[in-house]
Structures are given as C-alpha cells and as structure tokens.
C-alpha cells in the first residue's frame, strides 16, 4: 500500500499540470483480488508496477488501484470507483463471475470502458476488452510435456487446485493431451494451490502407490509441497515434478537444469499488466484495442528460462 500511496501522490502532482494543459484527465480504475496466495501476490506486484510506470508515461492519466479480499468488498470498490471517481475505464479481475457481473454492468452503463481479466463475467458482451490466460492450453501444454518426457509411458499422480472452472479446464486439457500415450493417472486429489495441503496429499500418494514415475503438480506452490514430501520419504522412483504458473524459484531451478524440475508451464500473473497497458493505450490514442487477448501458456525449458525469470517479483 505504501507504494500505492506514493504513486497516488506522484499522480496527483502530475495530474494538475496535465489538467491545465489539455483540460482533461482520464481516470482508470483497477480492481483486483488481494494478495492471498503466491500467484495473486505476483499479480498485485505487476499491477502496482504498471500503474507506477504508466503514470510517468501518461501525465493525463490518473489511476485508482484497489485490492479486495472477498467478492463483496470488490463490489463496493467498483461502486465507489464509478460513483466517486467517475472512472473512464475499469480494469477488473473478478473474484467470482456471478456477484461481479451486475456491478461491472453498471460501470459499463455509466459510460466506462470495461476490461475484464482472467475470469469472464456471467453475461456476455459487457466487456470491451478481455485479457486472459489459456487454461485448456495450460493443461494441454503440461500434458504434452509429460507425454514427451515419458516416451515409454508411465504412472503419474495429479494434484488439482481449488475446485473451480479454471481447474476443470486445465485438467481436461491435460487428459486430452495424454490420451493414447500409455500414461496412467493413478490418482487425482485437490491440493488447493497450497503448499501445506499438497505436502499432505503427496505423502498419502507415496504411501498408497509404491511406484510413481512423475507428478503433475499443476502449480508451482503445490510443487514445493510435493518436492518436500518426496524428499522426506526418500523415494527415488519419481523422475520429475511438473509445476505450473512460473514462480521465480521454480524458473530458477529449470534454469539451473535441476533434473526434478526439468520444465515449467507459464500462466503469467503479469497478464494484469497487459490489460492495464492496453486499456491505457485505448484511452490516450486512436489505436483500436477492443476484442479478446488470450495469453498463451508457454513451456519453460532450460533453453528459454532466462526470459521468464523476474527476480524482483514476489512470485
């Protein structure tokens, strides 16, 4: 929040002369979930960094950034932005689709440009711009990697995230990609994108199955728990663990050619930066930015890892 207050002060100082120059300051509201887990922490970091950068680049743009710890707070945030700040554009990463559809619809009715990030709303056609990761692609990329790393087939276990559409799409994409590749999924359990939960789930998988060739942890936080459980049990049968998202510690291990973490699949929290940048371009220039912007999931290998390593990000 300190950065944000500083950013506000800077923007206030810059906004006054800008206002004097061309008579109009445009306000962009950014509403995102609070940093309650690693990925969201990274997303918060990139949102703040982008707002700071853009306020320097565009003196006639003013930003309001709010973080919400639950859907109800996010609804309030958006209502306040529309009523009190008269935002010209709203960039929103909805906590949940259903409860936020109405408030975003109202913001749209007030004349604001709407950019929706990552999670769609339950009514189509509200957003002017949709920026999202590719969840089925994330699963497919992961599945293809596992299949190629186990050419002779093998037995794997899968850790799933919090039961959501996101998780379902990923798992379906994964299952489709390994179809007919002689890879047997021994078990799937929810590790809830949480290190402690995945540690316990993996311990139990290790007790249950005497032979596991690989683990699809499907998330880097869960991969941390999985690795600790494997190490503690002293099991040598597991050849590798595939996480996902692109946490800096995991990208570092890929870069260092760690055999347990040979690759990672991105689901970049920096997609919020893409959304804010595009929205700003739309407001200040005549370049068209409406439509859909889907950020593909990329396989990180030792060869390209350097390009995905952000040591300053908290994630």
């Amino acid at each position, binding site marked *: 929040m300190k950065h944000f207050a500083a950013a506000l002060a800077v923007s206030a100082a810059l906004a006054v002369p800008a206002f004097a120059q061309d008579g109009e300051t445009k306000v962009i509201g950014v509403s995102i979930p609070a940093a309650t*887990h690693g990925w969201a*922490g990274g997303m918060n970091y990139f949102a703040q960094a982008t707002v700071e950068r853009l306020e320097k680049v565009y003196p006639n743009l003013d930003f309001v950034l709010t973080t919400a710890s639950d859907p109800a707070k996010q609804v309030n945030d958006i209502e306040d932005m529309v009523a009190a700040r008269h935002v010209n554009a709203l960039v929103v990463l909805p906590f949940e689709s259903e409860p936020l559809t109405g408030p975003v619809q109202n913001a749209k009715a007030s004349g604001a440009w709407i950019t929706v990030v990552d999670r769609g709303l339950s009514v189509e056609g509200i957003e002017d711009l949709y920026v999202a990761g590719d969840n089925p692609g994330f699963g497919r990329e992961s599945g293809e990697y596992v299949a190629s790393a186990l050419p002779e087939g093998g037995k794997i276990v899968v850790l799933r995230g919090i039961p959501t559409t996101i998780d379902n799409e990923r798992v379906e994409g994964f299952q489709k990609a390994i179809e007919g590749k002689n890879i047997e999924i021994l*078990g799937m359990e929810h590790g809830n994108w949480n290190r402690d939960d995945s540690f316990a789930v993996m311990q139990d998988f290790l007790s249950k199955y005497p032979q596991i060739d690989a683990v699809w942890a499907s998330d880097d936080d869960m991969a*941390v728990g999985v690795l600790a459980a494997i190490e503690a049990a002293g099991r040598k049968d597991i050849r590798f663990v595939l996480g996902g998202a692109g946490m800096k510690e995991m990208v570092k291990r890929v870069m260092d050619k760690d055999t347990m973490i040979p690759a990672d699949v991105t689901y970049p929290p920096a997609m919020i930066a893409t959304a804010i940048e595009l929205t700003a371009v739309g407001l200040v220039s005549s370049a068209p930015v409406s439509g859909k912007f889907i950020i593909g999931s990329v396989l990180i290998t030792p060869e390209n890892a350097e390009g995905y390593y952000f040591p300053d990000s*908290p994630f």
Partner: protein
Amino acid sequence: MKSPKIQMSVVGPVLALVVLLVLGASLNPSFLAWDNVTNVLARSAFIGIIAVGMTFVITAGGLDLSVGSMAAFIAGLMILVMNSALPSLGVGIPIVLLGMAVALAAGLVAGCLNGILISRLGIEAFIVTLGSMGIYRSLVTWLADGGTLSLDFGLRTFYQPVYYGGLFGVSWPIIVFALVVIVGEIAMRSTAFGRHCAAIGSNDQVAKYSSVKVARVRLTTYVVLGLLVGVATILYVPRLGSASPATGLLWELEAIAAVIIGGTMLRGGFGRVWGTVIGVLILSLIGNILNLTDLVSPYLNGAIQGAIIVLAVILQRDTRQGQ
C-alpha cells in the same frame, strides 16, 4: 445417579477413532504402515499442540480465533529474522536457537495482548481474537509483500531435521506433541490451575468469591496458548521453510473442532486434554483415509469431515443433557 450411560462421553470419541482406524486398515493395507502412521501423527502435531492450549482457553470460558493467523505471522517473522541474521551468525545452532527464541517471544507477546484485552479490559474474547486474527493475517501478507517468505536454502537444510529427524524413528513433532499433551493432562487434572480454569468456565462469579484470581488465570490461558503457537511454528517452519498468506489458514477452526470433539464443553467449565488428542487424530485421519482410498469424489471430502465431526459429538450427547 452414576449410570453406565455417563461413560458414553468417554467412549464416544474413542469409539469414533477406533471405527476410523478399522475402516482405514480394511480399505488400504498401507494405512497401518509405520510411514503412514508417523506421517499422520507429525502432520497432526501443529494443530494438536495448539489445540492443547485451546483446551485450557475454552475450559475457562474463552475462545481464540487468532491462532492460525498468529502462527502464520510468527512463521514469517521467524524466517525474516533468521534470514537477516544469517550474514553475522552463519549457518549453525545459534541461528536456529535465535529463530526459536523469536518464535516463543512473539507467541508470548501475542498471547499476552489477547489476554490483557480480554481479561483486564473485559472485551469479548470473540471480538478481540477476531480482530487480532485479521491483524496477523494482514501483517504476514505485508511482510511477504503478498508472496512467499522463504528461509535461506542452506539454513533450511540445516534446520530441516527438527521436522523430519527424531529419536528412535519417532520424529520431533510427535515427541514434542506427546510432551505437551502429558504436561497439559497433568495440569488440567491435578493442578490448581486446571481446576481454576474449570471453575471460571462454569461460573466466574462463584470462582471470584472463592478467591480464584479470575483475570490472572484467564490471562495465563491465553499466554500459554500463544507460547504453544510459538512451539508449533518452530516445528512448522523447517517442514517447507516458507510462510505465505495461506499459512495456517483455518487452523483455529480445526483446533476448536478438535477440542469440542474431544468432549470439552464449548461454553466452558469442563475440559479434557486427552480428548482433544483424540479429536485432532480423528480430524487428520479423515483426510488421510480419503486420500488413501477412492471411496468418494474429492469434492465431498468436506462433507464427510463435517458429518464425522457431528457424529463424534452426537455419540457423547447423553451426559450433556444430564449436566
């Protein structure tokens, strides 16, 4: 009026535990394997150590919702202090002792704050600890900048045996848990402190007129709980070497549930430390059995857990009505 039915309150939770053990063993042969048993016990140790402290707080008519957030905050603080002391102290026993001292001191202070607000200023325990729950959770998010605080890798490797190592094949978390339970059981049954807790929980006015120092005993229960949260954190940090805003999420509810399953009364006045141990084991065995079998869809794990918690309490209902 001591009828054999009275025993149901004792038998109830034990029966539930035995049923779970038989179920687990019949569904998967590796359930009773030494590795699985130690995994489950070590996993239960964090909640278990905290739940023993919670037993005293609840027996004395109080409640503490802040323990999960407190554990996360202490873990974060411990990691920060150890990382920053690394250049001067180097990897070794002194730095681990420093980390442990920080955890215990932070737990003591946090418990004191809760206890003073509740016992001296007379604010509802629910409100005070709901407030501190939010404060500690935000503090750890802030310390971690929304991400994850990680212990230096070399340090983590050195500190790891505190979770994974042990004596005679029994790991440290289990040993510490057992010691805490033994001391707690003795304190609850055979010391003035234990009896004062029960007296305050059943009627604090009467306790006051019987010259029990009500405020001091109440304060002590929160301080002890804070200290035990510190102990649990000392064992938690070496496991994954990290703390994040998701650390210790819902631990408070698990600890309270374990205490109630074990036969302690939520409104205070009666507490049973060994019962709390049974409660903790029941809770972690449910998760373990569901992971080891493919009996139900993983979406239903929460429902099964909820049903067993309610069942375990129904089993001991008879005495409740008598009291």
